[in-house]
């Protein structure tokens, strides 16, 4: 009983929007290797989390068919959406269906409207996921897709599971599962076993979990 009262993840079916937010914040804390109350505060007060919160609210508000509730909720959503756009430069439209643990790292120049985005997807600054102007075809992204800063995924593109799109790449054609897209226009190559493990493990920033990488990176031995 207490778990249901206090653990938002277990309330997932009761209130999908807020349960998802719990996962989003946890995943972002994991990726930025933040811990404790201060880390939670830093993540919750960050622009990316705010944008995801407004997206979750908007997606939930769009499901209300009864106009007396739905219209005021959508009005509140659009206010929040435009404030987020102005303040943080993040535009994640409520139309797209985004899975659990969606993380926006950093802010500015992010435009995401997709048909479907799977679980565990991560978006960095400067990323565009959307239609080609004049067409209504939107991308479909699988689970565990990492979009590095500045990459663009445009048009009726299907991206499989466990995919990394490297920074500044332009993806205009389908990407199979377990692969990496790099280049402008993007060429696809399969992920190595090592890279796949690192992507799936969502290794925190600077490898605080695998301490060897951490020491090496910091020059501390």
């Amino acid at each position, binding site marked *: 009983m207490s778990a249901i009262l206090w653990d938002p993840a277990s309330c997932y079916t009761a209130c999908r929007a807020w349960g998802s937010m719990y996962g989003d914040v946890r995943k972002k804390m994991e990726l930025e290797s933040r811990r404790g109350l201060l880390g939670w505060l830093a993540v919750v007060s960050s622009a990316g989390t705010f944008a995801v919160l407004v997206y979750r609210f908007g997606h939930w508000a769009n499901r209300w068919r009864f106009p007396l509730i739905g219209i005021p909720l959508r009005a509140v959503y659009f206010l929040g959406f435009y404030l987020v756009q102005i*303040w943080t430069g993040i535009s994640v439209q409520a139309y797209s269906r985004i899975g659990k643990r969606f993380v926006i790292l950093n802010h500015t120049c992010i435009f995401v409207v997709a048909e479907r985005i799977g679980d565990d997807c991560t978006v960095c600054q*400067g990323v565009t996921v959307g239609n080609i102007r004049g067409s209504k075809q939107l991308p479909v992204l699988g689970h565990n897709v990492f979009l590095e800063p*500045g990459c663009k995924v445009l048009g009726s593109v299907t991206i499989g599971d466990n995919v990394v799109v*490297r920074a*500044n790449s332009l993806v205009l054609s389908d990407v199979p599962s377990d692969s990496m897209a*790099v280049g402008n226009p993007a060429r696809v190559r399969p992920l190595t076993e090592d890279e796949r493990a690192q992507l799936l493990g969502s*290794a925190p920033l600077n490898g605080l979990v695998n301490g060897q*990488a951490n020491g090496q990176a910091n020059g501390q031995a």
Partner: protein
Amino acid sequence: MTMSQDPTRDPPVPSMGSSSPPPALTLWGLIRSDIRRKQEHYVLVQRFFNKYVKVLAQHGTAAVVVYRLGHWAVTRQSRLARVLAIAFYTCLAVPVRWISRVVIDPRVPIGPGFVIHNFSAVYIDAERIGDNFTVNQGVTVGPDFRRNGRPVIGSNVFLGAGAAILGSVEVGDNVVVAANALVVKPPGTNCLVAGVPGMILMRNLPPDYLTHVPAHHRG
């Protein structure tokens, strides 16, 4: 192992700022070196307005000054001083981050002469960065999707608009990264890198590569 010790690479060329023990500049000295260097970049019109009003009013300058304050704050020895300084820095950093969209981790040590020319979508989180570091808009220096290491950047490095240096990459001295390039492999020193993924377009870059004005543009 640093880039300059790797025998397969070009021999290191001593750069302007890389005299072996870097002079320990004060906070004010660092900020002054940044602003001086930015003032020098207005090579064509050296008027009072450009040199003082324009440089001091730019978003990039504000971001650099606030970063300097933040680095000074996190390197305080006494705990009380550190907490107070970080609190003061945060009060300045949050509005400046909102306005300029420049995010620089205050723990990154950056040498004197750090210039941000334009101001949006800049994210800098490196291991360490040398002197005379120049950044344009949309630049990302940080960990990649593996999140197991951050770049190390030498002196006199220029990053064009939208350039990204990701992962544990060692970039040597006197490197120019072209606009929208992605650097994921160590390019060595004295070179021009461009493309996604980055390729070396020119080695043995002349030191005046960026400031050189071709003959048909002179006078």
